[in-house]
């Protein structure tokens, strides 16, 4: 399984992760049949270094924006300011959608942020290979 990741979407996720540091950053990702189209940097209502909850009203607005463009929400991203880019037991327990891509940004080494992608289905974590696109 692999996923093409446009450079500007990767950049949007990494910038949001860095801007929110030392709190966890979070957001949603929209796409269509052609691929990923947009990363929505959203508010972590918990404003916490170890947990996140996406602001539900912002989630709703992102959904409606995506639908107006003919896109769907296809994934979520969040950062781990002090740990690895791998889903935690809490991430797995709360994962709402087996079809979504779960992007994790690890800032354990802030100068070299890690970005990885996963699917989480029935408590099972499967890594997705990322193919970075230059544009």
């Amino acid at each position, binding site marked *: 399984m692999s996923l093409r990741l446009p450079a500007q979407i990767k950049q949007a996720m990494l910038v949001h992760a860095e801007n929110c540091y030392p709190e*966890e950053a*979070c957001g*949603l990702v929209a796409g269509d049949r052609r691929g990923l189209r947009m990363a929505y940097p959203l508010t972590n209502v918990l404003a*916490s*270094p*170890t*947990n*996140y*909850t*996406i602001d*539900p*009203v912002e*989630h*709703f607005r992102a*959904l*409606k924006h995506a639908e107006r463009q003919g896109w769907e929400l296809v994934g*979520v991203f*969040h950062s*781990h*300011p*002090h*740990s690895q880019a791998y*889903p*935690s*037991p*809490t*991430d797995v327990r*709360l*994962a*709402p*959608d*087996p*079809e*979504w891509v779960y992007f994790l940004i690890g800032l354990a080494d802030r100068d070299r942020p890690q970005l990885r992608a996963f699917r989480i289905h029935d408590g099972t974590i499967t890594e997705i290979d990322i193919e970075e696109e230059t544009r």
Partner: protein
Amino acid sequence: MSTVKIQLPTVLRQHAGGAKTVEATGDTVGEVFADLARRYPALAAQLAPDGDLGVFVNVFVDDEDIRYLDGLDTPVRDDAEITILPAVAGGAR
């Protein structure tokens, strides 16, 4: 009695025969959900694990979050659109 459209998140669609949008009737969100539960018993268990709105679910009537209206007592007009969203949350541990 109002007839409304309810947009379901992907996780709930399997409990409604795969439909993205379903219809139900009622004059409040609570009544609509009760009707939905009658039509799709599998959905009822998902929506209300403890007899109230699950904490893992957010509900919007048209463009408004019902937490800022009257919750399950929020009135719905005919042709209203209800959107159910999963809470999106996690942590580092």
